[in-house]
């Protein structure tokens, strides 16, 4: 039983460590972006289209 416990403790420590390294040190730098990463361009395009069509966005519209 003790052998099993040490085995699983090793697995969990190793797995948790790997997950933290991959997510918080590698992926964090590669795939994390500003919250408005997509919206910035979309909103600019929408405003441009609305301006061209002569329509103004209603106040308070999300």
């Amino acid at each position, binding site marked *: 039983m003790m052998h099993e416990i040490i085995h*699983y403790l090793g*697995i969990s420590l190793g797995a948790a460590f790997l*997950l*933290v390294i991959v997510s918080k040190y590698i992926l964090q730098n590669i*795939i*994390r972006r500003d919250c408005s990463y997509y919206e910035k361009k979309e909103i600019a395009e929408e405003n441009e289209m609305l301006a061209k069509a002569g329509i103004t966005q209603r106040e308070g519209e*999300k």
Partner: protein
Amino acid sequence: MTLGSIINANSLHPGLIMIGMGLLVMALPDRFKRPVYMAAPVMAFAAMLTINTDSMMLYTISSKLSISLISFDKLALIFMMAFCIVSVVAAVYSVNGDNKYEMGFSLMYAGCNMGVVLAGDVISLIIFWELSALASCYVVYSKRTRKSTRAAFRYILVHGFGGNMLLVGIISYISQYGMHITNITGNNDFTFWMIFVGVAVNAAVPPLNSWMPDAYPESTLGGTIYLASFTTKSAIYVMIRFFAGTEWLVWVGAFMAVYGILMALLENDLRRLFCYHIISQLGYIVASLSMGPGYGIDGAAAHTFNNIMYKGTLLMCAGAVLYATDKRKISDLGGLGRRMPLTAICFMIASFAIAGMPFLNGFASKALVMHAVNEGGYALASFMLTAASVGTWMSIALKINYFVFWGKPVHEDALKDKELKPVPVNMKIGMVLGAAACTITGIFPQLVYRMTPSMTDGHPFTAEHIAEYLVLFVGGSIIFFLFIKKMRVHDEMSLDFDWFYRVALDKFIEWLSKGIHGIFIYFDKLVLKICQYMGQHLGNPYLWTSKSSNKFIRNLSFENEDRLIGSVVAAIMITFICMIVIAGVVM
């Protein structure tokens, strides 16, 4: 033709009841919407209890074609049971909604997925499948914000792609196997891949997964519960029917489990985080079903059932937090345990259940899944699934319980002076029902095991198995608190595979259209130049002589005032003779 002659049935169809009631909710005046909305899942549940293996419903389209809307066995039983339970809980949770169209479409969406599970042939399956995509699209859109509208548009495009792949696969399938649903494992042909891609979209298999964290969080609180409970689960059901025993899927499942966890560890948005956990849990299910009948299919079915329970509860709790605080980001929350104790306790139960804490339902079904994978001899896949369990513990049970409910807020002043909106009673009842389901099926796992196709008993409560999970959690907790500063989330978002169609595809199309436009412009200018040249030279033939490089021809030009008349006469004569010779040859 009377209705009796086109529908031959000895049983009620729970899915059709839900669809009918959904239409009724939309058609009736507003004051009837809540009673009908609540009655629908209860009636569907009652109808489901009357169905048995002899139940049938045939819809006759022509003398040569009739489709079977009901085909019931033990696999359908466990999925239908889960769908009916979650429909009742979701209806209780969201009964105070105002939008009767959202309510109606939610019922129709649930009903369509019940139709998929009960489908007796591939035609009824694809019909309910496509209708489900349409209904769920409205559920995504129903919040009617800019974000939800755009998310719904992307959602329907992705599901349109998946639905068409499945449709093509099914047409090909009918030509090969007929209409009856059979397992096509091992036939790595066109039909297999078309159906697989179609189903993989709904099962959120990476790289076809990103519609989920994109769309689900943008729906309403109630809508998210429906969305998280049906689309992916009915896709798993179809996957079991067609692909159970396809062993390479174990790697797909293991990858999904780890991928979901890595993304969840990074995520700051509560509901997006749960979406990644859905993907991770689906990974366990896909890995299990790849091992085939016995532990494999039973593990997949049991884990799907339990997943619907604890995932629904987690999303209901997240919805309650969002409702009370109007905030959805972990970085904006903190210390809510004392201010929302019921939500915190329900959340803790469900989060421990998803991680696999003994005596909660995730523990019991993970036992079947892990047994199936270990029995198949896939040690690396087994390690990946175990690592995902540790990651689940860290990214939900520790991360959210600590940063949202019981620990100090990330920002000290977060919610400090904010008065929380009281959570409605119906939402509280929904959360309590969900948490109770997780606990009861966790303490008495036989309730779920008995519904699985082979009724496999996982015998989860052995000292070794309990110790295994407790030790896994201890290891995960040690690393979590060692890296506590790193575990704090920041107000950022993660790019997912949707980047390829939201940015890369956008840029590619822009580049392509600019390229095509450039080619047109080039030829436009070229043709214009040719026309100008021809126009100039045909209109003024003497330009041909004046600009010629040949001295003799240049000498003939009208521009040359010193030209020799003899040369002109000679040229005219030569031309004239040439014309006569050519005319003679031709004639």
